[in-house]
């Protein structure tokens, strides 16, 4: 066979056009997918706008939320008071904006709290067989309680406030986070690169922190995006029940509850806060769904 002798192979050719995605490239592609899906893109936009408005409430709100004006009580929506006024003459638009801010703050902070507590517990439960039964039973016990009962209990102990609501919702959200973190850990620890890390001399902490946690982030992001709307609604419920934010700080839930007796005279008092809650949680849910689909790795094409 007179084939010319093979010389040293040249360096590997550059990667092909369509590599299987992971990590940063995956997020870019995920973003593209989200933006392409009208529902999730819409959700993202709405969420962004509302977050911005809520964050800048102090600047955007035309009136201070606690400013009463007995000359303009129970006014229907008008150019001056976009969402009308309540029985004390307070501008509803400003109150909704501030209420939204409270909702978002509690919603987001409580989920952060859930993550801070739940992720380590979930990682430990998934990684150490010994700890798993203990942590899982704990999770199951927590899940057995309707979260309102938990919240009520905490509020009774701590006294109703925005902080109480945040803590109560945070604690209530822990079991779900533990579940996700645990299942991701169980899945990831079977992968070869985790074994490779152990073989390289990684300590347990290093394995969890450098190899397992970073790869569990996607699933946790998705879960968080779904938990926040739940927490927002939770805050409304708590405040509705008088266990959360205290007046005069507006809370969307409180606004809805105090609008009940006045519904005949001023339906706008209930409508706008209600719509705000629904819109925000719906948008977050749609975005979260889109995010979950987008981050779902289209598995390796050989």
């Amino acid at each position, binding site marked *: 066979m007179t084939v010319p002798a093979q010389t040293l192979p040249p*360096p590997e050719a550059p990667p092909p056009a369509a590599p299987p995605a992971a990590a940063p490239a995956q997020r870019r592609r995920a973003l593209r997918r989200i933006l392409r899906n009208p529902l999730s893109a819409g959700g993202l936009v709405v969420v962004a706008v509302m977050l911005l408005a809520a964050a800048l409430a102090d600047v955007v709100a035309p009136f201070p939320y606690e400013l009463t004006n007995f000359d303009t009580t129970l006014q229907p929506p008008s150019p001056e008071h976009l969402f009308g006024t309540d029985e004390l003459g307070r501008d509803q638009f400003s109150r909704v904006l501030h209420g939204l801010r409270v909702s978002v703050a509690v919603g987001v902070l409580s989920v952060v709290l859930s993550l801070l507590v739940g992720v380590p517990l979930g990682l430990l439960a998934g990684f150490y067989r010994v700890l798993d039964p203990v942590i899982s039973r704990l999770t199951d016990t927590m899940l057995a309680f309707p979260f309102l009962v938990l919240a009520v209990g905490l509020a009774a102990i701590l006294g109703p406030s925005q902080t109480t609501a945040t803590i109560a919702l945070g604690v209530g959200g822990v079991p779900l986070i533990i579940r996700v973190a645990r299942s991701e850990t169980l899945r990831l620890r079977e992968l070869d690169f985790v074994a*490779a890390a152990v073989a390289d001399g990684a300590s347990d902490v290093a394995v969890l922190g450098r190899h397992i946690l970073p790869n569990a982030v996607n699933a946790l992001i998705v879960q968080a995006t779904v938990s926040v709307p739940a927490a927002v609604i939770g805050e409304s419920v708590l405040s509705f029940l008088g266990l959360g934010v205290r007046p005069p700080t507006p809370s969307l839930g409180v606004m809805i509850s105090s609008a009940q007796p006045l519904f005949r005279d001023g339906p706008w008092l209930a409508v706008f806060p209600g719509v705000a809650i629904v819109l925000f949680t719906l948008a977050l849910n749609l975005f979260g769904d889109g995010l979950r689909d987008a981050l779902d790795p289209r598995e390796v094409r050989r």
Partner: protein
Amino acid sequence: MTEQALEVSGLVKHFGPVRAVDGVDLSVAAGEVVGLVGESGSGKSTLGRCVTRLLPVTAGSVVIGGRDIAGMSRRQIRPLRRQFNIVFQDPSSSLNPRLTVGDIVAEPLRHHRLGTRSHRRARVVEMLELVGLGGEVTHRYPHELSGGQRQRVSLARALAAGPSLLVADEPTSALDVSVQASVLNLIARLQREMGFACLFITHDLASVEYLAQRVAVMYLGVLVEVADRAELFGSPRHPYTQALLSAAPIPDPPLQRRRQRILLSGEMPSPVAPPPGCRFHTRCPVAVDRCRVEVPVLRPVGPSGALVACHLVGDDGTAPALVGTADQTAAGGTGDSPGRAGGLHR
């Protein structure tokens, strides 16, 4: 007595009722490549993971660098891991997708605290060049690389700290043929240049014949034959070894057609309830009553001291020939050797 890089004695690994590894003795000398061959269910991968203590050991000893790591706690073993490492089969799951290639290769150096930051960077580049990738892949992520390139990264990682023993668990099985060749060549070259001992686990006989000096054949949790490469491929003794060699098709159609095939009945039994006596007797074409009852011992036979666990193999090395002619494998040449009338061959 050459120094042994790895000495396994009486290794047992049970997962509850599943007796994955049921008493294995195996040693790998310093700088030697030993091939561990078996089909799925043989326990070879489990053995590999036990040897590197990625799995706890049920019983037995694993001596590396003079220390028995079988009974040690994870904390005790960690510093010793500098001396041995492992590469895996699946390129898509053996690299952390969140780390760059540079980070991945530097892992053993970091964990064992070897060198300063700049030393490590240099070593990473050195290793990457050694495996045939340029230093420029340092900042790439695994998904940007092909399967073959990823396996090279795995090798660079496993060898970065200069271990004396490398366990390679099916490193080429998930790769295309042409890529397999380059990885096999690479392993051969690295082994020659760096001098580490290698336990090469695979089901592919051809690559074992290419790389290994000694070959061990595993069946259902135990070793059935251990011999030098030439001897194992030229005159396999254990019936399972013969069947295995006969079954692996040779890419040479006229030769392949001429070969007599040994077709085994049934499939490998479950490791939960291995057959009594010789585990292979349920599929062995030449099993006798003794095989069903008495467990054969892995013992040296013949002038070379090859190890075989079979009642039908004589101490002098004579073994039952399951096919008439000697040309079961390409190693036997192009056949046309005078056919022996069945019976025994040396």
